[in-house]
């Protein structure tokens, strides 16, 4: 297992390098430049700006300088925010994205898992079906519709929560609800089908025959395999939740990673784009690895690192 993890981490390095190199060149090929605004400045001033940020050098020198900085974990200055570094902006974005992402994730698991189990146990109960129906509505309602609807109800009619903004606990409620809505339904559905499938297995019947308590059967024998599919779904989705969800951040004006990413792309803030891409890539790689490890721990049939 340790060897497997080590190998995965070593493999991640060339992968990261490839992602960053591709991004480096793609953003530079996009027309436009970081400091362009509607009002053009004299050519000499533009030259000062280029020189200030090393953009006057040939591409291979810029590339080499950038990679050299990366090795020292220096992502350079942001072009959009000349007083701040990319590292500071990314940290700033995470301060908003992580609480929202984690809260939405917790809510989705906390509601989705029990709901799925209940639905699997009482497939014909009317209220379970109603709740599941509601959850499915959550999946099919795009978040850019759900978000404004919640705002209309809770902010502009009832005045309970602020319609947007960031910084206090009350700001969390609506975006977290909006963000988790789709995941609740997914997780509930995955859990339901997983549990149902497991309950139909022979070993469950055997357990029943041996007189094992039904709750123990459910928790120990049926839920465990059902969790596998939930896990492999939620691992990468956690990465996306953390890396910022552009639409939610736009609607609720949250200064998260997604917000900065979109801004950076629009402003051709090369260094900030690269900084956020590398963070997202690392988060995805790490979380996928964690999911694989968790699956191996849950499922005795999976043995990491052993071929065949």
């Amino acid at each position, binding site marked *: 297992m340790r060897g497997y993890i080590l190998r995965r981490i070593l493999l991640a390095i060339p992968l990261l390098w490839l992602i960053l190199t591709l991004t480096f060149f793609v953003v530079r090929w*996009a*027309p*436009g*430049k970081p*400091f*362009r*605004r*509607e*009002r*053009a*400045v*004299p*050519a*000499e*001033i533009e030259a*000062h*700006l280029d*020189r*200030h940020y090393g953009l006057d050098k040939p591409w291979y020198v810029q590339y080499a300088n950038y990679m050299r900085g990366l090795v020292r974990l220096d992502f350079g*200055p942001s072009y*959009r*925010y*000349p*007083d*701040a570094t990319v590292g500071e*902006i990314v940290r*700033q*974005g995470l301060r*908003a994205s992580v609480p929202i992402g984690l809260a939405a994730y917790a809510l989705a698991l906390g509601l989705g898992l029990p709901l799925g189990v209940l639905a699997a146990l009482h497939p014909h109960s009317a209220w379970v079906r109603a709740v599941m129906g509601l959850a499915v509505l959550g999946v099919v309602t795009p978040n*850019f*519709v759900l978000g*404004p*609807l919640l*705002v*209309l109800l809770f*902010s*502009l*009619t009832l*005045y309970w929560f*602020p*319609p*947007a*903004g*960031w*910084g206090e606990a009350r700001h969390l409620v609506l975006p977290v609800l909006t963000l988790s809505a789709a995941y609740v339904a997914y997780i509930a559905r995955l859990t339901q089908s997983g549990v149902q499938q497991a309950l139909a297995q022979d070993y469950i019947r055997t357990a029943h025959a041996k007189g094992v308590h039904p709750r123990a059967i459910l928790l120990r024998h049926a839920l465990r395999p059902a969790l596998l599919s939930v896990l492999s779904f939620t691992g990468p989705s956690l990465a996306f939740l953390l890396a910022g969800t552009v*639409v939610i951040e*736009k*609607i*609720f*004006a*949250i*200064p*998260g990673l997604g*917000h*900065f990413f979109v*801004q950076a792309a*629009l*402003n*051709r803030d090369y260094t900030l784009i690269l900084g956020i891409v590398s963070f997202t890539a690392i988060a995805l790689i790490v979380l996928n690895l964690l999911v694989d490890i968790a699956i191996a721990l849950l499922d005795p049939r999976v043995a990491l690192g052993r071929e065949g």
Partner: protein
Amino acid sequence: MKRLVCIGVGLLLLGSCAHPAAYFGKIEPPEGAVLRVGNGADPASLDPHRAPGSVEEQIVINLFEGLTEYDPVTLDPIPAVAEAWEVNEHATRFRFRLRRTARWSNGRPVTAWDFVYSWRRALAPETASPNAYLLYYIKNAEAYNTGKVKVRDRRTGRFLTDVFGRELMLTPDELRRIRREDVPSEARHLQELRRRLNDHPWEAVTLSAEDVGVRALDDATLEVEMEAPTAFFLKLTTLGVYRPVPREAIERYGRAWTRPEHIVSNGPFRLVEFTPGRRVVLEKNPLYWDAARVRLQRAIFYPYDEATTVLNLYKAGELDVLVSGLLPPYALRRLQQKRDYVSGPYLLSYFLLVNVRRPPLSDRRVRWALALSIDRERLCRRLLAAGQQPSGAFTPSDFQGKYPRPSKVGYDPERARQLLAAAGYPEGRGLRLRFLYNTGALHAQIAEAIQADWRRTFPLIRVELINQEWQVYLNTVRLGDFDIARRSFSADFSDPTSFLDSMLSTSPNNPTGWANPEYDRFIQQANATSDDHRRMALLARAEEVLLDDLPIIPIYSSVTNFLRKPYVRGWHANVLDRHPLKFVAVEREGTPPGFSGR
């Protein structure tokens, strides 16, 4: 998708406020003397020299106080750090007397030396200030910032001048060519200069920070020498890039000097927080010389840019006032009936750039035909609806009656048809144009309306609309790869020069390929004139030349429009949308229910 959100929420919003109330949403003032401003975007930087646009300016002018300050209504310069000033007859030398009570937030007095340091820093090539060009009116400022050289006659020791008496400047490349006698024959002014230089023993002079025409005569006296007469200089000294910066903090902390824990400022407010994407928080500066007058304790600038989100926040009472231009077009008519809606003239022109290098647009008749067939009246009334004025000129205003603005371009489809037929395109036959615009605002709808006008007037014309993302669009325009492109231009300061300079043949803001020596001459002559009345007349003649040729097709003059809660005082509509918070207050008591004045 953004549009979907807008429409969806828009319908819901409008539905929810079906019975019109006097105000839009909550009108209870916040706790304490706090003002929460919807500022439209994140400031890139709070360094006055690195702050590129109006979003930054809005904040920077409250942190740093210049020689002069904006009057909150007229924007005329009023005394600030300078308590008095004198100007010589030709408006080439200004002397400011600084008030001795002005202090930095660390207690140190603000002196004339601070301004000398600050202006030199703004111009230093290493600072890479995008706004350095606004200081070029000061003697030797442009030469120092751009590395251009001046030419001195060795016998008299004087600098050579052009026909208007302005000292000549050469780029390093031009200088090399003259020295090597390698002047291309088409560069006529260089050829002429080379001939002139042959008669004189001459030398090229590189100018440094010490040569810039700003001097401290003593702690409280600042003298500024101009490159040429600059009657409007006091409007410039109000701008952010002219405001003083603290030498001690900059030398100690470098790029990080604008952080709340390092910053030293001299304005009515000081910085307590800047969280990118979230907010900028200012607090009243107790050491400010005029602190007794400052009534706000705190001001918070929010960067929200999504129009619907901004509107929601305002309605819910989370924002007290918005800067101009943040209101979603779909809600405009409804909002206009509210007492919070404020609107006024704005120094911003919306127009079309015409690429005159390309036939058939190189034909003046074609440009005029296109201009005369746009029904601006209808466009403004039906589509824009915020009070925008149809414009027949490049400048958007007569500058309080001081500028005899020529307005030439109207709506005359009959004459347009004649002109186009005379140019060889009857009914628009064979005329194909590519109309470039960028994503955002109402640009697409405006382009479609203009396309429809052209089609109605010339049934056979073919106009292709091309939509590009902002940075791509800027790049395409700059490369001159367009037939017609939409453009808007706002003033840096309230003077027609701020617009007209941009159409000089040498201006980086003129991508049309149009160069008219007569226009350049009128502008240069105006720029060398000290009498303001005469200067305005010369500028108007230049604009007439421009409008005769029409390398730009005027569309409309814009307006400011925003929402302001009834308890906010001293935040006025003005032509640059600048709002010094020194004059703003939040009044908790005695807000009369019908209050709608200033």
